[in-house]
């Protein structure tokens, strides 16, 4: 057991009991104390706010949130972008800017900013009077510490940097005065501003950032400036947050000021998705996360709100590695993309809330244009393409073959997405009708990374990837990056488009290049789009309202409220 010396320091102003009392008995008594003290604290603060306070939050509006797991731990560089922990982090922390579901960047802790012409230098002006929940200021010095953690991290101490932050071109940052920060890059970096609204870029107190990896694993040590503060937590089981009464710096664009309306949020882990659904139906929780898509219709009929927020990023689909047979032949790739009946997938695996892909990028990305005609279902064309490619022999089981080799491949459905398994099985049927044998095999996350992602001989890579700035695409398409399609630098067109996207200094100029690039990727069938990616499903009680989602589909409960049933 490691000592937890500064547990007290981690407690927000409204909380009375020390958090992280993780042993059972202490946990119970702390919870009881906290519960008993809450109304008192609320009354006192309400009194103080009575003269001139901006809002009058209710005192006993509690939100109960059932989640599938909280296994990722609480080291921000490990779990801030997790689909699970991010739901908690978003309530505990703020960001420099707010990036909405359409990719629009608006002020938050940074009230305004300037950038130079070639997008290599940015000056951020910070809002005054913002504090972390331990009372320390969120000023230029704190922002510098965060930028350092996002861009560089401390890998020699096991603390990784934030993956999507443009660390590659990051040169450095300096404080021009206590509320002004200048950030410089070695090359044009248009992605910098939108990325500040990405879930990885959450502002933590410098004291939290300075902790060791093991110390950071204790959520009670993580101090943010968000509308809620930690009251208590039990690992993998429960996190309870309470409203921060002096919070007054929510993003203006969301329209709510002052402290949160809800007095507390309790996240409880219930791994079984049918039970999360049952608990919601029985009114035992206000919110259930990630239930099976196929039961959603019954909730809609019962008056529940179903939120399937879509993040900015790539659509759900498969990227194909062109060095791996049979994808070394463009006609096979095109036949695969033409042989998938996407309408049937939407009908049988998902519900009306899911929408078809229109490109390889999500429809919410501002640069996305409708290129459906380049991959629409066309089994006749697919058959013709396979015949032309010489896959005309038939095996005993009826699959196509060429020179005695059967036409087929394996899909390892991603463990990160609800519905990926039935979807892959359906695709296997679709392509089976064309004579392509598609095997499916389910793997757990570590095995998946090892056997599929890191194995260059696996032809199909399932993509469920968010980004906040379309410039990200430049980093995946060639060997100066992830080389998704294993084309290296051999596709000159791809290389040219990559350079133009990466080097663009204005978003308008870049948008045209992105369309050209998308067209090329889809014509070459390097990427098989399936449907608009929905990675998070929220079943919400009809009493809830005022919930907003950001660019990466993470909810904010700052403005949320709940009608008394």
């Amino acid at each position, binding site marked *: *057991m490691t000592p937890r010396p500064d547990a007290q320091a981690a407690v927000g102003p409204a909380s009375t009991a020390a958090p992280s009392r993780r042993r059972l008995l202490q946990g119970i008594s702390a919870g009881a104390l906290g519960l008993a003290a809450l109304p008192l604290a609320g009354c006192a603060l309400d009194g103080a706010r009575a003269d001139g306070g901006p809002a009058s939050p209710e005192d006993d509006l509690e939100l109960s949130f059932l989640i599938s797991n909280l296994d990722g*731990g609480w080291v921000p560089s490990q779990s801030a972008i997790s689909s699970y922990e991010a739901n908690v982090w978003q309530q505990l922390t703020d960001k420099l800017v707010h990036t909405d579901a359409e990719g629009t960047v608006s002020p938050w802790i940074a009230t305004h900013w300037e950038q130079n012409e070639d997008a290599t230098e940015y000056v951020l002006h910070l809002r005054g009077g913002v504090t972390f929940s331990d009372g320390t200021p969120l000023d230029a010095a704190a922002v510098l510490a965060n930028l350092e953690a996002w861009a560089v991290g401390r890998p*020699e101490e096991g603390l990784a940097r934030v993956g999507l932050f443009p660390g590659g071109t990051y040169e450095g940052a300096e404080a021009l005065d206590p509320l002004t920060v200048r950030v410089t890059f070695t090359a044009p970096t248009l992605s910098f501003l939108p990325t500040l609204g990405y879930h990885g870029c959450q502002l933590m107190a410098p004291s939290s950032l300075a902790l060791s990896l093991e110390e950071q694993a204790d959520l009670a040590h993580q101090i943010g400036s968000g509308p809620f503060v930690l009251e208590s937590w039990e690992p993998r089981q429960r996190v309870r947050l309470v409203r921060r009464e002096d919070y007054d710096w929510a993003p203006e664009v969301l329209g709510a000021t002052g402290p949160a309306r809800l007095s507390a949020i309790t996240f409880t882990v219930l791994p079984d998705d049918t039970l999360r659904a049952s608990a919601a139906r*029985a009114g035992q929780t206000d919110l259930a996360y990630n239930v099976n898509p196929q039961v959603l219709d019954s909730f809609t009929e019962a008056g529940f709100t179903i939120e399937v927020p879509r993040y900015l990023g790539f659509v759900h689909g498969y990227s194909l590695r062109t060095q791996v047979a049979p994808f070394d032949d463009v006609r096979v790739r095109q036949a695969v993309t033409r042989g998938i009946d996407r309408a049937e997938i939407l009908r049988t695996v998902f519900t009306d809330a899911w929408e078809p892909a229109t490109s390889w990028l999500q429809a919410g990305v501002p640069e996305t244009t409708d290129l459906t005609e380049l991959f629409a279902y066309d089994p006749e064309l697919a058959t013709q393409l396979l015949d032309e490619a010489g896959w005309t022999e038939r095996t005993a089981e009826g699959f196509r073959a060429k020179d005695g080799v059967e036409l087929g491949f394996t899909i390892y459905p991603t463990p990160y997405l609800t519905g990926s398994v039935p979807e892959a099985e359906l695709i296997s049927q679709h392509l089976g009708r064309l004579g392509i044998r598609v095997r499916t095999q389910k793997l757990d996350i570590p095995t998946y990374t090892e056997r599929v992602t890191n194995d260059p001989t696996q032809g199909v890579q399932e993509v469920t990837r968010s980004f906040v700035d379309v410039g990200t695409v430049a980093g995946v398409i060639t060997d100066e990056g*992830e080389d998704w399609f294993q084309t290296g630098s051999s596709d000159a067109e791809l290389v040219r488009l990559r350079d133009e996207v990466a080097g663009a200094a204005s978003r308008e100029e870049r948008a045209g290049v992105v369309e050209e690039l998308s067209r090329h990727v889809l014509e070459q069938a390097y990427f098989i789009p399936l449907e608009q990616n929905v990675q998070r499903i929220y079943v919400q009680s009809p009493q809830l309202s005022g919930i907003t989602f950001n660019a990466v589909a993470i909810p904010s409960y700052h403005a949320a409220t709940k009608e008394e049933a």
Partner: protein
Amino acid sequence: MSAAATETTAGSSPAGTSAAARTARRYGSFALRRTGQALVVIALAYVLVFLVLAAIPGDPISAQLDNPQNGYSEEEKAQIRAFHGLDRPVLVQLLVSLGNALRGELGTSMSTSQPVAAMIGEAIPSTLALAVTALALAILLAAVLGLLSRLLPEGPLNSLVRSLPAAFLSTPNFLIGLVLIQVLAVNLGLFSLVEPESARSTLVAALTLAIPVSAQIAQVFITALDESSGQDYAEVALSRGLPPVQVVLRHLLRPSLLPTVTVVGLVLGEVLGGSLITETIFGRAGVGTVVQKAVSSQDVPVLLAAVVLSATVFVMVNLVIDLLYPLLDPRLRVGKESR
């Protein structure tokens, strides 16, 4: 041994002290041998699990580092791997890990960076509450079924009681849990799914676990009761006109307890194994859940600690059972055989 035997025959009149001392000595060497064996078992389990996990590709740290989305450079990956000691050869990692474990340092989780000792320590009370309640319920249930099987007159009701264990045993644990949850929590609202550690929820979870476990105990108990009821002394007792309740309680119960206690020891493994599924169904943060997550994420330090813990529990339970035998059956008392 021969010395001990001589002593036995020599000291028949002042038997008390020397026999007791001899018994204690024998018992001491027996306990030492058993403890030594147990330590070897635990160490072997540790090494075996370590090697098996090393042979399986993937671990949580590499899964994060190699996720292309994060775009880490080779140098960054190497630094982070080195921090966790993953750059060293497997055998060196094993020796370091074993050395740390001997010093009582279980390390930190590869998934969450939390100290393993704390993770497991915090999960134990929940599992203990579930397992103890479940075992108590199982024993109670088995006792009721066993006694009813002897006390109910032959007929359909008796047959029903006797067929229940088989029915319990063939119903999967998770099915019982899901049905109980659906009926008690969802339909009747008797307990809340959102408070999995509450007393009511614990009781229902324990019942889920107790039903199949009780069946195994009940089967053995019923058979043992039947067997002892066929013995001469039982028939004599009955023929003397003792009421059946007295016969069962006074004459049949004690000889039937020996096999029953043995099976209780054996089903303890079932209770701990079953708690894994039950905890997951009910969303309890117990040891079973910790192990299940550690298995699916290949979190080596957590799994090793769990292996040591469960091996220790099993060894201790077996030891306790061995110590209970002589109390239940005088024939098994150490040293008696030479008289």
